[in-house]
């Protein structure tokens, strides 16, 4: 079997704030295999971004990894020194952020923000680095890159800046790209362009991709496997196909039911009562139990463990066998089945 490229094991990260300890990550398990595209899905505050920050150890000052391992190519990143981490960041694991407007330094030319990093990490001269940068910018669709590289970020639109950030990340030839909501700040027609570029780049450079998003549509399109996050824990892991056709965790099902669809007529949206939990004082037991319609006494007392229910399918729920798929979900899934029939 193929060794995982990245393996996060029982990762626990806390934030120490004036109002108390925020249990942001509470035992996260996550794997990314080489060349694989993995989705990390959840709502705001579920810990998806902090997982990425913990992997790269770029947490805010009041954040601390309490326990757990981050194995990258078999090596644990958690005990590593800053100097060692600097060799991992960018060169091995690159990251692009949600907001392309703030991820570039507004008072530095694009060239200055790319060339130095490339020269350092890839051990080439500045002239060669400039060539590499121009090549990378051209690859992501920046026309006239040789001249535009000496412009300042404000001359570029949001979509263009996100392209520049992708180019900068990929110019170092990383093995893993972490993309945190890469298209959330963009308009749909621009989002479509950027998604195409990420797909192309992934193919071209044999990248593994960890895609963090709340947008289920983007996940369906871009990923092979999905981790569903809820309240600082992982609720369900499965192939993208299974998540959308045979979801098992009550939260996954509720999430699928609550989104309006362009393809299926939904009379009334199913809702999840309440709102996303505050992790300063998280619910006991299963963190989803106050909002779950299958919750029983056990759910508020015992933390459900992540178990492999079928090969490759992990669910953390005490009563996953009792979970039923509602009419609406059935309808959504039914429409999928019809499409498969039509295709064959």
């Amino acid at each position: 079997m193929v060794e995982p490229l990245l393996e996060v094991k029982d990762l626990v990260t806390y934030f120490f704030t004036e109002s108390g300890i925020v249990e942001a990550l509470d035992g996260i398990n996550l794997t990314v295999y080489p060349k694989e595209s993995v989705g990390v899905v959840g709502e705001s505050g579920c810990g998806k971004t902090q997982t990425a920050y913990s992997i790269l150890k770029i947490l805010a000052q009041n954040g601390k990894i309490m326990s757990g391992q981050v194995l990258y190519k078999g090596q644990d990143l958690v005990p590593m020194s800053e100097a060692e981490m600097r060799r991992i960041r960018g060169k091995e694991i690159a990251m692009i952020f949600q907001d392309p407007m703030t991820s570039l330094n507004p008072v530095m030319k694009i060239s200055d923000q790319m060339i130095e990093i490339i020269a350092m990490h890839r051990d080439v001269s500045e002239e060669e680095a400039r060539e590499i940068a121009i090549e990378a910018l051209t690859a992501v669709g920046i026309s006239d890159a040789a001249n535009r590289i000496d412009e300042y970020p404000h001359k570029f639109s949001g979509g263009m800046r996100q392209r520049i950030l992708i180019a900068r990340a990929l110019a170092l030839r990383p093995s893993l790209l972490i993309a945190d909501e890469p298209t959330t700040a963009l308009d749909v027609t621009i989002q479509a362009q950027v998604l195409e570029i990420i797909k192309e780049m992934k193919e071209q450079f044999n990248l593994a991709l960890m895609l963090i998003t709340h947008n289920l549509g983007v996940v369906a399109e871009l990923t092979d496997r999905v981790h569903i996050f809820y309240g600082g824990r992982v609720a369900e892991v499965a192939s993208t196909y299974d998540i959308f056709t045979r979801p098992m965790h009550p939260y996954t099902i509720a999430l699928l039911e609550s989104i309006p669809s362009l393809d299926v007529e939904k009379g009334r949206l199913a809702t999840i009562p309440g709102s996303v939990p505050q992790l300063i004082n998280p619910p006991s037991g299963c963190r989803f139990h106050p909002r779950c319609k299958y919750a029983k006494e056990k759910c508020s007392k015992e933390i459900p463990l992540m178990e492999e229910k079928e090969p490759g399918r992990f669910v953390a729920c005490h009563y996953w066998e009792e979970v039923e798929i509602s009419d609406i979900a059935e309808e959504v899934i039914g429409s999928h089945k019809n499409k498969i029939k039509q295709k064959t």
Partner: protein
Amino acid sequence: MASESENENVLLELRDLRKWFPVKEQGFIASRQVANVKAVDGVNLQIYKGETLGLVGESGCGKTTTGKVIVKLEPPTTGQVLYRGQDIYSFHTREDEMYFKRNVQMIFQDPYSSLNPRMLVMDIIGEGLQIHESHMPRLQREQIVYDLLEKVGLEDYHAMRYPHEFSGGQRQRIGIARALAVNPELVVADEPVSALDVSVQAQILNLMQDLQKEFNLTYIFVAHDLSVIKHVSDRVAVMYLGTIVEYGTNRQIFTKTAHPYSVALMSAIPRPDPRRKMKRIVLPGEPPSPINIPSGCRFHPRCYKSDNDKCIKEDPPMIELEPGHFVKCHYPEM
């Protein structure tokens, strides 16, 4: 007025509405105007009583500005907004003005900045009543606020709290209660769910639909998310660069999409279905700046159907493809 007698179901009508913002350059002594940002550039639309009209488009297309002109937050540069046949920017009497202001309310996008952080929820929701029903006894007003809180799914004791004590979804409920306190006819909702988590978004959409039935509301629902628009709207208008390029019933827009921009917009949306391998139309480039609007059809530089002749020279007229379905294109998809 003529328009009123033509169709008494028309609640609001926009006639050749334009909102241009001047771009100024500082000179030695005074600043001078060098250009115009044509945020809204010739919008014609009718809104019928009791319907939900979805106004959809990308950022910068003028949908929010249109909403603001409708609720009289931004005066138009030219054109008219007729509410029940009367131009809202030239009311004859104060009574007419107050009647309009009471009956047209707005729900804002950002539940964090649209509520005054120093006011109690009781005062936020009750403020409209204090203005429009100044003779109403305090107890009666408070009772109305409590009733509204219950209707939007909050509790009595929430009235004595400040906005910062609530989550985003709860704040949006307060914003909705505030808009409904004066019993309006028309509510302009500007991206009411785009700042919310998906699980909370569904709650707010359902709430808005329930309240529409209960209070006979007419909604103008401004959003960039096509699946939300499809879910809530009776009729849909698609905006591009300050103008409406296509409008019609929900069914017409989503099953007989005619304008190339609408087609591309729909194909651009990633669907939550891993096996659906769609043929996506990726539009080249980005929406041009509303300062320099392209000649002819303003969509032609990005259009996959542009013929490079007629489209560059002639601004296409709005044509009616079938009853109620209008498109502004020389070569609509059919």
